[in-house]
């Protein structure tokens, strides 16, 4: 952890994106305090109004302030994303560690389930699941989490299978540590860097996936602002009010860029490829 911060402090991309993400989180958390209009409040005297001083991003088809809706949507999008990230890391590592550590039939079963789920594209699964249940953000979270943990399980399982052979695990076992303790105290910390990298890179992808599913109308909870859904509403008024689909998209883009930048730089810090780079230089001369 200490060495992480030592390297991180020198990484400009990391510092920049971390600052950006923190600002974003603060804005999202405190949006309700400083927005000028209630994001749910219609203003029928200014419907589909162009951006002006009072409404900097314009208003939508029932006169709600787009800017306020974007800010208040940030909180929803980010909360949902982090909820899913924690869910899939939890499911993925628990199942992956079980499969890798205990092996045998458990390993076969868990890994087969992983294979099966990996062969279903998320959007297709979400459409099917939501057709059966009903549109709603809860069901979108369910659909995404049910499929997304598989990559974490596979990675964890492969790591644990390799770690199991290591001497320090044998030593811990000889020292009388219980299996649960070996998993949580000896194996889990070894997995952590890769998990962090994966999760950091997944935040951006998840935000895009969720916005995409809302855009398709799968998470529709009309009054509550959500970026993807705002865009699908805006599409109907593409000729009269293009700002309806300009600003929510910019919000998604900026958020995803910041998180992707953070993810990339965390990966570079945690898995430096210095040796390979040095080798590579010879040929490029």
């Amino acid at each position, binding site marked *: 952890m200490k060495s992480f911060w030592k390297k991180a402090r020198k990484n400009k991309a990391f510092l920049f994106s971390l600052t950006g993400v923190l600002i974003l989180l603060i804005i999202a958390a405190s949006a309700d305090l400083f927005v000028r209009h209630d994001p749910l409040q219609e203003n029928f005297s200014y419907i589909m109004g162009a951006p002006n001083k009072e409404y900097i991003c314009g208003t939508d088809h029932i006169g709600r302030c787009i800017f306020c809706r974007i800010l208040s949507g940030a909180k929803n999008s980010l909360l949902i994303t982090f909820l899913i990230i924690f869910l899939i890391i939890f499911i993925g590592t628990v199942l992956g560690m079980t499969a890798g550590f205990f092996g045998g039939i458990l390993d076969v079963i868990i890994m087969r389930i992983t294979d099966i789920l990996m062969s279903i*594209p998320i959007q297709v699964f979400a*459409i099917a699941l939501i057709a*059966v249940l009903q549109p709603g953000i809860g069901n979108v979270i369910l659909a995404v989490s049910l499929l997304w943990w598989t990559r974490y399980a596979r990675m964890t399982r492969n790591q644990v299978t390799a770690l199991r052979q290591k001497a320090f695990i044998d030593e811990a076992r000889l020292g009388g540590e219980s299996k649960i303790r070996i998993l949580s105290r000896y194996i889990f910390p070894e997995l952590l860097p890769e998990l962090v990298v994966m999760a950091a890179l997944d935040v951006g992808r998840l935000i895009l996936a969720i916005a995409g599913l809302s855009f398709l109308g799968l998470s529709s909870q009309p009054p509550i602002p959500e970026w993807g859904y705002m865009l699908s509403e805006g599409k109907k008024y593409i000729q009269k009010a293009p700002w309806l*689909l300009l600003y929510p998209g910019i919000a998604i883009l900026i958020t995803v860029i910041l998180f992707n930048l953070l993810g990339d730089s965390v990966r570079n810090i945690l898995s430096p490829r210095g040796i390979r780079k040095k080798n590579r230089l010879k040929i490029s001369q």
Partner: protein
Amino acid sequence: MIPLRRTAMHFLLKSIGRKLLEYLLVLFSVSVITFALTYFAPGDPASMLVSMNGGDVGLDVIEEMRETMGLNDPFFIQYKRWLINAIHGDLGFSYTNGHPVRQEIAGKMKNTLILASASFAVLLIVAFPLGILSAVYSDRLPDYVIRVLSFFGISMPNFWLGLLLMYLLSVKWHLLPIIGRISVLGMIMPVTTIVVQLICMYTQRIRAAILLELGKEYVNALRLRGISRKNIILHNVLPNSMTSIITLLGISAGALLSGTAIVEQIFGWNGIGRFALDSIAYRDYPIIQAYVLQVCLIYTTINLIVDIIVFLQNPRLREGASL
């Protein structure tokens, strides 16, 4: 010599056989999941059928219909019947208009496949040169430009890109038709919307795969022997990094097939994804079942073929460890 070759052949067949078994297992499980989803779904096919025909009948008639339709049978008997029908191409009847599902989705599936394969072609044509260029000029200007652009492209929500294109090219400048259709002009925007993100992703991955290969010792050895960079890259590095690139392309099939749903929705493309989305509102489960089954079938089949190709073209995998 002969026994060695026989063992290699034996190993090859055994591995491909195992892949085939896994493939069948995945398909079987997907079919169970698909069937289970609609089996446990609210709504009763018998009453759906009645109300669809505009009939108003008593509960006893519906009960009788349930019996003749086999809806009172246990789960696995119903599943077996459904699966056998599905294998023979009979996917049931649409709840909304009573037409056979197969007939309803055939044309739409074709439209989706046209869109997906056009996008795949564009993906190949653009991502390969960019990835190779970026790797060959690594850490120099072309590489930086490509990396920055692909970073933005990856972060770009594709549905937003579609809307922006639509606004600029159709609404504002009237250059392209606003509704996507099967023609060069009509496909520009839908295809762009699908592939931009994928192109950026694959450019990065292809770059990484080639750089990984370029860093290996044999490249330096060849270089020392005086073989030109161009020749090393064309004849050694590219063929050797193919394995990982082909695998990547197999995975992209899923993104292409399911990603079309968003594009079909935006551009009014008459494809299977939009049809499935529309069917949600009517709770037309047979349509959705058919959608999931067909997309998963195509996706897993493509990946099976990819696995076998990778296997056949890579001598290390052929003789060494499992796939």
